[in-house]
């Protein structure tokens, strides 16, 4: 309906292969990003920025990571939480022990460490698939979390085992505080947003390049992928590495910019499932879906817990928790049956409808 594409023709491959080839979409996304950077910090309060936007963005990064592995490369993982933990602990180590490095570098280092771990646990993927691989990633989940909680080196021999994150400036001792309890919520939000935007852009770019196509080729038909020269192990490991990098960065941001400490409880198996749900409901193989899914899954329990209040009903908190489980379960089944490609596909369909408007097809 709102699309006016006639006359938007492409005279070069560069234009035809662009990220957002429809001008409407381009303006929409630019507008959205501008709003996220300028409008949101202005209108958002402490609660919205600090308790909703930050975690949603961080979870979206992790969801993008899992989506690269599961949605694009077709390798099921139940170890997302552990890869996030790897990023968080390593970022903490770097930030505390190599304090001459700016905090963004520490966070990226966390991602890098997570990528290495990811490769390690991805090696079995050469020989095993599907559920078998899920077990390998479960092993990562339990083993890594045990490792980080039982080897005190990771927490600098902190007695509580849950070290707090100090207040770091953007660049060592220059720039605004971006992490820790003293940092303003706007600064933390923008810091996370920058990561989210750049990682999303990078993911979209990879998805449309050689590497993305080789992931999808392995996912869709590994035998055919091999005959055109795609190395299965190399491709799968690259997916593990990049996926884990995203998860690692997300884990580090979670510790540094959201909960302000390195808390193992944040990276349990439940987190892995939560992120899996995000990509199922958001849409497998879609970067947009990662964001939609993250927002949806994160906001659902919040909405559910508020809903009775809005409706003037008095529902005990534990009932809401159970309801949340039930709704989540039903939603997952519903999406798998009705729209296995999730919210992103619904968005796509809506967009197609608008493009075809007023015609039905």
């Amino acid at each position: 309906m709102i699309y006016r594409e006639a006359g938007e023709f492409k005279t070069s491959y560069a234009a035809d292969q662009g990220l957002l080839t429809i001008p409407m979409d381009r303006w929409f996304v630019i507008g959205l990003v501008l709003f996220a950077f300028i409008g949101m910090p202005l209108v958002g309060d402490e609660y919205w920025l600090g308790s909703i936007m930050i975690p949603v963005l961080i979870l979206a990064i992790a969801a993008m990571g899992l989506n690269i592995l599961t949605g694009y490369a077709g390798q099921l993982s139940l170890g997302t939480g552990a890869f996030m933990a790897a990023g968080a602990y390593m970022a903490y180590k770097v930030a505390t022990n190599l304090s001459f490095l700016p905090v963004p570098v520490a966070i990226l280092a966390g991602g890098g460490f997570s990528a290495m771990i990811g490769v390690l646990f991805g090696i079995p993927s050469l020989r095993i698939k599907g559920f078998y691989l899920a077990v390998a990633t479960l092993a990562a989940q339990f083993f890594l979390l045990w490792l980080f909680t039982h080897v005190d080196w990771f927490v600098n021999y902190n007695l509580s085992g849950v070290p707090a994150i100090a207040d770091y400036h953007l660049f060592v001792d220059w720039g605004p505080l971006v992490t820790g309890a003293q940092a303003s919520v706007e600064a933390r939000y923008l810091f996370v947003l920058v990561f989210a935007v750049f990682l999303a852009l990078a993911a979209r770019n990879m998805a449309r390049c050689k590497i993305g196509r080789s992931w999808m080729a392995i996912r869709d038909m590994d035998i055919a992928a091999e005959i055109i020269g795609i190395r299965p192990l190399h491709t799968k490991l690259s997916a593990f590495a990049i996926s884990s990098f995203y998860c690692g960065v997300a884990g580090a941001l979670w510790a540094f910019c959201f909960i302000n400490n390195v808390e193992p409880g944040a990276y349990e198996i439940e987190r892995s499932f939560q992120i899996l749900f995000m990509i199922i409901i958001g849409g497998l193989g879609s970067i947009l879906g990662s964001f939609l899914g993250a927002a949806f899954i994160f906001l659902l329990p919040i909405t559910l817990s508020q809903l009775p209040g809005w409706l003037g009903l008095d529902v005990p908190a534990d009932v809401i928790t159970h309801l949340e489980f039930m709704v989540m379960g039903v939603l997952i089944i519903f999406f798998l049956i009705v729209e296995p490609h999730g919210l992103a596909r619904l968005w796509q369909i809506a967009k197609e409808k608008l493009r075809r408007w007023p015609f039905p097809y």
Partner: protein
Amino acid sequence: MSEMMADNENGRIGGELLSVDNITLRFGGVKALTDISFNINKGEIRSIIGPNGAGKSSMLNVINGFYKPQEGTIRFKGKNVNMKPDLAAKSGIARTFQNIALFKGMSTLDNIMTGRMLKMKAGFLSQAIYWGRAQKEELENRAFVEEIIDFLEIQSIRKTPVGRLPYGLQKRVELARALAMEPELLLLDEPMAGMNLEEKEDMSRYIIDVNEYFGTTIALIEHDMGVVMDLSDRVVVLDYGCKLADGSPDEVSSNQAVIDAYLGVAH
């Protein structure tokens, strides 16, 4: 495209490109191929025929490295090879499958682009920022792929997800993907299976065009004898994993053993 064109002025067919020597392949106790030898010359269209279960597909699978023969050697471009499929691809062997093996979740264009995988060398960082080498490669290879799309006349389905295409077109896309690899040897496993007459004619024309334009050597498995006899320079006949005959279409079709084993049977 012009650099792909073979110099066909002086005789289309050149020297030996691939030789299969005494190949024996067993699955457990079952012998799929027994002591098979034949060769494929540069530039020719070589057909492998035989009744169902004769071992034709196994033969192709041995050539491009899916199956490891227990005995015998394969030499490609004079070198002894015993490779994995991805290495076979690297050395210049492409193939299509009897049951279409396209990447269902991707568009026609992306499927064909995957055929250019080996020609793209950009690092992942360059790809992540879509800048420099990665972008250059994407655009160059897109241009190349467009030539193939044009060649096989599949412009109108360029951006259609392959899962939605009719069977005949899917086969064509698969051929396009194989062609995008600029192979020296193209293995076609029943490229016309399940096609109607018109589609078969189209496909035959494309096969000849590929052979003539790009000088690609083609090894072909096909059931339709008419097609085989029309297209092929030489034919090798398999039956129960053994070689029955080898020679020009005329020689093969007049060979008594072949007639008994295959042509005599109503197909």
